[in-house]
């Protein structure tokens, strides 16, 4: 079995966030986690080549790298394409999902990725791509690659793939008919008893947690509107007064900008640990565009720039937590008479 493996710049051994803009490169054989993968692939399998790309480059040039990857996988005559495991790395997961989807539809060979359930790549691609639940971090590397290898070789051999809980992949939202001995009422009673006793059980119809967000009406007159700036890029005043963490933030902050024409790097720092902060540190207006909005306030394009900006670290946050912070931010802004918000995301 000929396998092609995709890695980001970090697992590909090129470097961290400072190398996230590395363009796609191609290496023969296995690299990094690919070596662990090779040990658990069935006998006679080999990783014929590894494709590595920086997370930012992949996110910003997805179409371009997708074309390159499909061409390369075809050239290497692969039987299976594996991407990751990506754990909680969002840009990595999003790229891996897109590449797996493209390879399997365009080349007709199976593709498998590995991600944490919270990875945004899961919501985007779980319906079309088999994604093994990799757990949250690289401590689970061994189990994650074993799961990917097992599922990948099953798909190559056209064996029947069992349920998500048996095979270790993230549910794809597919309902399959099965013959069972117990009636629905009996199964329900068993599940209810398990739930009451705090024991594990598997629902037959999982509830999709993604809720539609109602679209607010447009702002009638911008020249009379108060506009607030909000960011999930983790900009905070020097000293980080609210102690925003680098990831998994449960807190957010509100910071006064009423006397500022623009933001200066010397007054701010970036708490976010998931992207290369140098450019925002150099000029925070690149993240929170106070300079331009102040200009527009003076020229009358907007009524008023709200006197504080809100900031949190959007990095690996569970959805529940993000929803709560969003609600709290909205309440504060509404109470202050803000009409509209520009949210900048890294």
């Amino acid at each position, binding site marked *: 079995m000929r396998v092609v493996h995709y890695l980001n710049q970090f697992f590909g051994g090129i470097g961290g966030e400072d190398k*996230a*803009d590395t363009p796609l490169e191609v290496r023969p054989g296995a690299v990094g986690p690919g070596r662990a993968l090779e040990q658990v692939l069935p006998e006679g399998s080999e990783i014929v080549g590894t494709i590595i790309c920086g*997370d*930012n480059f992949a*996110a*910003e040039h997805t179409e371009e790298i997708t074309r390159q990857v499909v061409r390369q996988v075809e050239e290497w005559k692969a039987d299976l394409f594996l991407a990751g495991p990506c754990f909680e790395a*969002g*840009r990595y997961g*999003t790229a891996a999902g897109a590449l797996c989807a493209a390879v399997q539809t365009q080349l007709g060979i199976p593709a498998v990725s590995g991600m944490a359930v919270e990875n*945004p790549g899961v*919501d*985007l691609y779980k319906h079309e791509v088999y994604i093994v639940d990799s757990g949250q971090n690289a401590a689970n590397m061994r189990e994650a690659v074993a799961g990917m290898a097992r599922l990948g070789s099953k798909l190559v051999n056209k064996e029947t793939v069992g349920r998500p809980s048996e095979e270790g992949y993230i549910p794809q939202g597919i309902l399959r008919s099965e013959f069972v001995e117990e009636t629905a009422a009996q199964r329900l009673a068993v599940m209810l008893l398990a739930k009451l006793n705090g024991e594990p059980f598997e629902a037959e119809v999982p509830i999709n947690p*993604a*809720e*539609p*967000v109602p*679209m*607010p009406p*447009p*702002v*009638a007159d*911008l020249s009379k*509107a108060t*506009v607030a700036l*909000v960011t999930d*890029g983790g900009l905070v005043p020097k000293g980080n007064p609210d102690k925003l963490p680098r990831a998994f933030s449960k807190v957010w902050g509100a910071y006064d900008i009423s006397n500022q024409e623009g933001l200066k790097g010397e007054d701010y720092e970036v708490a976010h640990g998931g*992207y*290369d*902060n*140098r*450019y*925002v540190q*150099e*000029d925070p*207006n*690149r*993240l929170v*565009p106070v*300079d*331009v*909005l102040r*200009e*527009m306030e003076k020229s009358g*394009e*907007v009524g008023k720039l709200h006197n504080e900006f809100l900031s949190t670290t959007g990095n690996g946050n569970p*959805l529940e937590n993000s929803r709560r912070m969003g609600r709290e931010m909205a309440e504060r802004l509404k109470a202050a008479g803000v009409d*509209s*918000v*520009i*949210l*900048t*995301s*890294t």
Partner: protein
Amino acid sequence: MTQVTAMVPVAEAVGSNRIVKACGIVYPVGDAALSPEEELELRRKLVREALAALAS
């Protein structure tokens, strides 16, 4: 609210309904490769796009 982000598919997946594509992940409304004047002009353009989305 308008969300300015380089990762448009993620914004769509979580239900964001006014989205403007940012310049890049490490500088949503900037570009370190440009001269300061060009960068400021780019930022004006992106912020105007975000405002136009708010009003429509």
